[in-house]
């Protein structure tokens, strides 16, 4: 830390430091906190389509939560979770080698180009990229015909309008959001640390497992957060490719707001979903911390033990 070496500053009037965060705070309060407060508020109301905003707040109750806590919600929520968790695991497994390759194996001059290639697809709209999957997956499409001509499949492709289609596309849609934070985390690991590990006798696998992977932890966490949470709320992928079988909770909330004009019930489901996602993340964090604690204890070497060794 170099702070103590800096020359003493002249006293001057200055605004409190959080002013710098002012624009962000205003933005978040207006467009994040306020809407969420409204959603929570509406979730206690009753549907009233005679009003411009179809919510009647005259007799607030927990009725919507009672209704939302139905088997309907749980069936769809389970399906959503399954898709999101599978996809998070897949993006991590697919994304990690890519990020590792970019951070350690690629020559400096190629790295920027490869990174750009990962970002380029997101220049196209999310919706268009999702919709584009319908072309190769179409049962009567050219791709399907080729596969059949080559004898790779019997009968037309039948993936569209299933959960598999949603799973494939959702992994594709979010892969970039996993690779980038992983790359940043891996890239920041100093080469000397890995060299030191090798000097101290660790093999490639041991170096990876005990040095690289733990140091990449924050990147993995960021990647999981950046993919898992939006996946839980994703409804574009499910709506475009999922048909009846790929119904996700986001689509269900949308259905309540736009289809049924039942804002209170939609709000209640949204609140439940936020709580459920927080709960799952909490469980996830707990698990990771537990594993870390156990590992730390197991690897702890006391002076007495060292002395016993020598």
């Amino acid at each position, binding site marked *: 830390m170099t702070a103590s070496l800096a020359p003493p500053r002249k006293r001057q009037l200055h605004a409190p430091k959080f002013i710098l965060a002012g624009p962000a705070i205003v933005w978040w309060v207006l467009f994040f906190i306020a809407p969420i407060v409204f959603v929570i508020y509406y979730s206690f109301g009753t*549907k009233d*389509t*005679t*009003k*411009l*905003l*179809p919510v009647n707040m005259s007799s607030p109750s927990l009725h919507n939560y009672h*209704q939302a806590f*139905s*088997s*309907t*919600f749980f*069936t*769809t929520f*389970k*399906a959503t979770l399954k898709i999101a968790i599978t996809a998070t695991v897949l993006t991590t497994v697919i994304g990690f080698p890519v990020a590792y390759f970019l951070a350690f194996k690629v020559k400096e001059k190629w790295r920027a180009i490869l990174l750009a290639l990962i970002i380029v697809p997101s220049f196209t709209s999310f919706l268009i990229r999702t919709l584009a999957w*319908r*072309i*190769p997956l*179409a*049962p*009567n*499409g*050219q*791709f399907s015909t080729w596969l059949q001509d080559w004898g790779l499949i019997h009968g*037309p492709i039948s993936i*569209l*309008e299933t*959960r598999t289609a949603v799973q494939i596309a959702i992994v594709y849609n979010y892969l970039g959001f996993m690779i980038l934070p992983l790359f940043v985390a891996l890239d920041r690991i100093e080469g000397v640390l890995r060299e030191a590990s090798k000097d101290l006798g660790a093999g490639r696998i041991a170096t990876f497992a005990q040095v690289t992977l733990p140091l990449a932890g924050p990147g993995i966490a960021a990647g999981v957060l950046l993919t898992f949470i939006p996946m839980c709320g994703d409804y574009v992928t499910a709506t475009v490719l*999922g*048909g*009846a*079988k*790929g*119904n996700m909770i986001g689509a*269900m909330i949308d*259905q*309540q*707001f*736009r*289809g*049924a*004009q*039942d804002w209170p019930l939609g709000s209640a489901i949204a609140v439940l979903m936020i709580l459920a996602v927080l709960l799952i993340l909490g469980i996830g964090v707990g698990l990771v911390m537990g594993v870390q604690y156990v590992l730390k204890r197991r690897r702890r070497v006391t002076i007495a033990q060292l002395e016993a060794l020598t």
Partner: protein
Amino acid sequence: MPSRPEPIKILAPVGYREHLSRRALLQLGAGSAGLTALLAACGSSTKTAAPTTTAAAPTTTGATTATTSAPTTAGTTAGTTAGTTAGTTAGTTGTTAASGPVTYSTVVNKSGGTLNMYTWGAYNDPSIVGDLAQTDLNITMKVDYYTSNEDLITKLSTANGSSGFDVVVPTGPYIPQMIQKGLLEKFDKSKLPNIVNVDKLYLGQDWDKGNDYSVCKDWGSTGWMVNTAKVKTPIKTWNDFIAVAMGEASGNVSVLDTGANVLGMYFWANGIDWNTEKKEDLDAAEKFLVDQFASHIKAFDSYPSTKIATGDYTLSMAWNGDARAAFQDIEDAKGDTSVWKWGLGTPNTELWMDNYCIPTGSPNPDAAHAWINWLLSPDISIKDLKYHGYNSGLKDMPGLITKYAPDLKRSDMIFFADAQVATMRTQRITSAQSRIADIYSKIKAKAGG
């Protein structure tokens, strides 16, 4: 439909290309329209303020007599089709066309500026919302789409008069609540002289007796498309539809993405009033649809036509115009249309009517009136009909078809015989709405589970 744009050359099934190009072009048009509007707005603000009215005096066109012009192209047409709605038993054939030549008003009012329309997908001929509107009316069109009336109402009510749309197209039963919420603006009827062209059967509907807020765009019904190469059982009624959906076609069935239609299928099949508010009827529908039917559904899809062409469905519930478009899409995809069969729902089915309306706060009501009026002139109305495939409800449709579209294909899917129309029912918005929405959510959840 001869006036479709050139398909984009991509690795896609031909049917899908059509879909892409149609939408893509519309959107390109919309984008550039927005840009021109912006430029125009920067240039001069007086442009839209003074619309020129080159009022061509109402002239008589056509003058075909109804009696002689029964179309040879239409298989089952009987004079003017009687579209009775909601209990009114008025519709006997040829009410307006019976005596002497039919005359039409063909006033075209020029306007200016940009016209923003919010409507259903693939619902207007691309040239009518593109070049033609530009040349005939001096209007630049920008079109956006919604998929349900609730969607439209939500958008308009949350914007509270600042949605920026000039024309919207709600279905009849939803109009009263829109008027009550103040979402619609009254017509200036002096700017809609062509309204006289609409058959009296389609004017003065229950939801807007004086046509102060709405005028018929077109009306249609609901039935099914079935791939007879894969389904051997003939489908004659909604009961057959349900049986096949749960049998031979299980897992490859699409139903319209509206609760009213999915429940309607059950009610129509079982001879129950579509607008029932009885608890036992709704309970029975829920029990059957959720526990037994839902798991066989592949998709909730209000426009199955393109996906029928790409081979996604074996059996689809569809609106007649979209089903008709499916045949075109299959042809374009070099598929075999002969295996596909259209069937109109029996013993009962739906009758819906969509209406042109002007939302409150429309930035350019003059252009909105000019455009709606233009769409009510016979030649434009028929040109549009050829694209969307729904009866646009003008006087003496057979005569107009003979005159403007003698080559119209599959007109039996557009015009229905009186006996068929008599089996059609109009939806009402009742106290059961919430329950229907709830059942529909359950069906959707079950179908995904």
